[in-house]
């Protein structure tokens, strides 16, 4: 734990998470590899059932039964492979090393306790000796986010607006000095202007404190605003990842293309917007062989029915699609053979 005070890098390798159902164990995340560079903000975009929240929970090794991590690793600098952590050491790692802002953090505060009391509970459960220091740190963080720290700590949940609660959530994730932060849907149910403020705060706090940040969202706009790198999830896989601007500007995977086309725009011709046919798969309807996206794909080929496309590097990105880069000689030969 030598470098716990600097932004850690995270390497997720071939991670598979399965859920036990009546139809057997079904993968919610299958064979996902993703690297979070130290000090970067990575955005994971996906629709419901894409496995994005499960992936985020895996970072904490917090997948709840009936789900379990069935394979792969999550290496975090200074912590090692989180998948192997159990019991007390795992609990310590959460909060100390990894800060997590839960989905709907606006509603995840205890309505019966003031924010300050909850902060102290958090400190005690992590064995913090200097509780005064903790409160001071919390006030500073809240102040940094434009709130009156003393007042907020004295408030109950119902006395705070949605945007204020979200900031409290971020404060609680950071106050133990975690340098890896996971934000699950940080702006859902917030108003436009509040959303913009929160996104700005995420970006600023990220830079000032030297964090590695992972943002999980269904909203491409959110990722576009804050993330350096973008990973697109579909049916439990990362189908495309790369620098945000590059992926948005020139998407490679047919799903990414379709998703971007399906967003109505403020300027330009309305006819450019195109709906994606079909609907996203659920745990039970994800195809077990072949490409998970083929049912909705405009570039479907025969090989898509039989072979799951591997995630291959194409320049600055990694794409899992048979139709991308087929002109490369090596793969052409493979197809001929």
């Amino acid at each position, binding site marked *: 734990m030598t470098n716990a005070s600097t932004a850690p890098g995270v390497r997720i390798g071939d991670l598979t998470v399965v859920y036990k159902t009546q139809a057997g164990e079904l993968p919610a995340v299958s064979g996902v590899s993703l690297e979070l560079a130290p000090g970067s903000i990575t955005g994971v975009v996906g629709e419901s059932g894409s496995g994005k929240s499960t992936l985020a929970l895996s970072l904490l090794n917090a997948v709840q039964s009936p789900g379990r991590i069935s394979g792969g690793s999550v290496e975090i600098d200074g912590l090692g492979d989180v998948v192997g952590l159990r019991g007390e050491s795992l609990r310590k790692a959460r909060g100390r090393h990894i800060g997590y802002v839960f989905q709907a953090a606006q509603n995840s505060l205890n309505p019966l306790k003031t924010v300050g009391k909850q902060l102290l509970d958090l400190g005690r459960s992590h064995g913090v000796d200097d509780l005064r220091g903790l409160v001071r740190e919390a006030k500073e963080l809240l102040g940094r986010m434009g709130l009156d720290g003393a007042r907020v700590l004295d408030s109950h949940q119902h006395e705070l607006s949605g945007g204020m609660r979200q900031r409290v959530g971020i404060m609680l994730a950071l106050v133990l000095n975690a340098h890896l932060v996971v934000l699950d849907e940080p702006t859902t149910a917030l108003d436009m*202007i509040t*959303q*913009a403020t929160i996104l700005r705060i995420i970006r600023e706090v990220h830079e000032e404190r030297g964090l590695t940040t992972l943002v999980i969202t269904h909203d491409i706009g959110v990722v*576009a605003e804050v993330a350096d790198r973008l990973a697109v999830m579909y049916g439990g896989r990362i189908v495309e990842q790369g620098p*945000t*601007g590059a992926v948005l500007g020139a998407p490679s995977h047919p799903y990414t293309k379709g998703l971007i086309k399906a967003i109505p725009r403020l300027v330009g011709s309305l006819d450019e917007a195109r709906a994606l046919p079909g609907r996203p798969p659920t745990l039970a309807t994800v195809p077990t062989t072949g490409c998970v996206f083929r049912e909705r794909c405009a570039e479907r080929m025969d090989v898509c029915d039989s072979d799951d496309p591997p995630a291959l590097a194409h320049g600055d990105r990694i794409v899992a699609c048979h139709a991308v880069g087929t002109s490369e000689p090596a793969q052409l030969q493979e197809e001929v053979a």
Partner: protein
Amino acid sequence: MITGQAITKTFKQRGNVLDSREVRALRGVDFVIPKGGAASFIGESGCGKTTLGRIIAGLESHDTGEITIDGTAMSSLRPRDRQPYFRRIQLIHQDPYSALNPTRTIHQTLNAPLALRAKQTGRSRGWMDERAQEVLSLVGLDAGSVLGRYPHQLSGGMRQRVVIARALTVDPEMLVADEAVSMIDVSLRLGILALLKDLRERLGVSVLFITHDVATARYIGDDGELYVIYRGQVVERGPVDTIISGPVHPYTQSLLSAIPVLHGLEEPGAQPVVPTEALDESHHDEGCLFARRCPFRTGKCESEVPVLGLGEGIPQEHACFHPERRAVVAQPAGR
């Protein structure tokens, strides 16, 4: 045509006996929605846009003001006689999960309003079945595979289509879509929006779209009118594209500036406006309601009340003493 004049609504919040707060949800709103036309109410949560939508759909009463449907003033009718008018204005809920009764099949859900119509007009069972198939095909669903199902067996997008189909059973004149796609998966949203647009074009149903997302409002009807609502008051009103390309009210500008920029595809607008944070301002009713958050406020804004109207060579109506067109919206990159 549906119009409203000076609609007001005040909610009394029950605190204790001594401290009963009043929340002015609507402070005199005028609107006109032409037959087959489109209109959008834009604003943040709590601005009154949803309340106004519910009043228009007849699900809520208003305090003062007048709603006129096809030339008939609603205040001239007894409550019982208003119902046939309001029935022609159907609300599409935000949440397709609670909008359908989980214990009833789609067939039962569609049949209830159809049976009522059949009884009133003396039509047969066969007509009901035909009509059920018809409305389902209008919303792009296959009757054979949907009718016998329960809501939980359908995806969010399909449920929202069923909700729209149910609204169509009464031949509505207008659909009021309250954040109708915000709970639907991103890749399916455009399908629902396209459906509403299509219903406008094919059936001549007018659509009132209530949302915080200006881009979706534009998609439904770029020929329609945009009403920007702030704290129960329309602060800017005009054709959608006019307002997007040159908003004049600082609140509209703040809203449009807050829309995320798709870097790589777009470049941010040249003159973004960032308001100061929303404070607890419900008690401050003097002057311009937005003044306390407005970066351009002057002394006049804090004492005098701006009225919605035209002026100073600006094409859209606005309620601001210092209107100025600003380029706040992101533009396509590269071109």
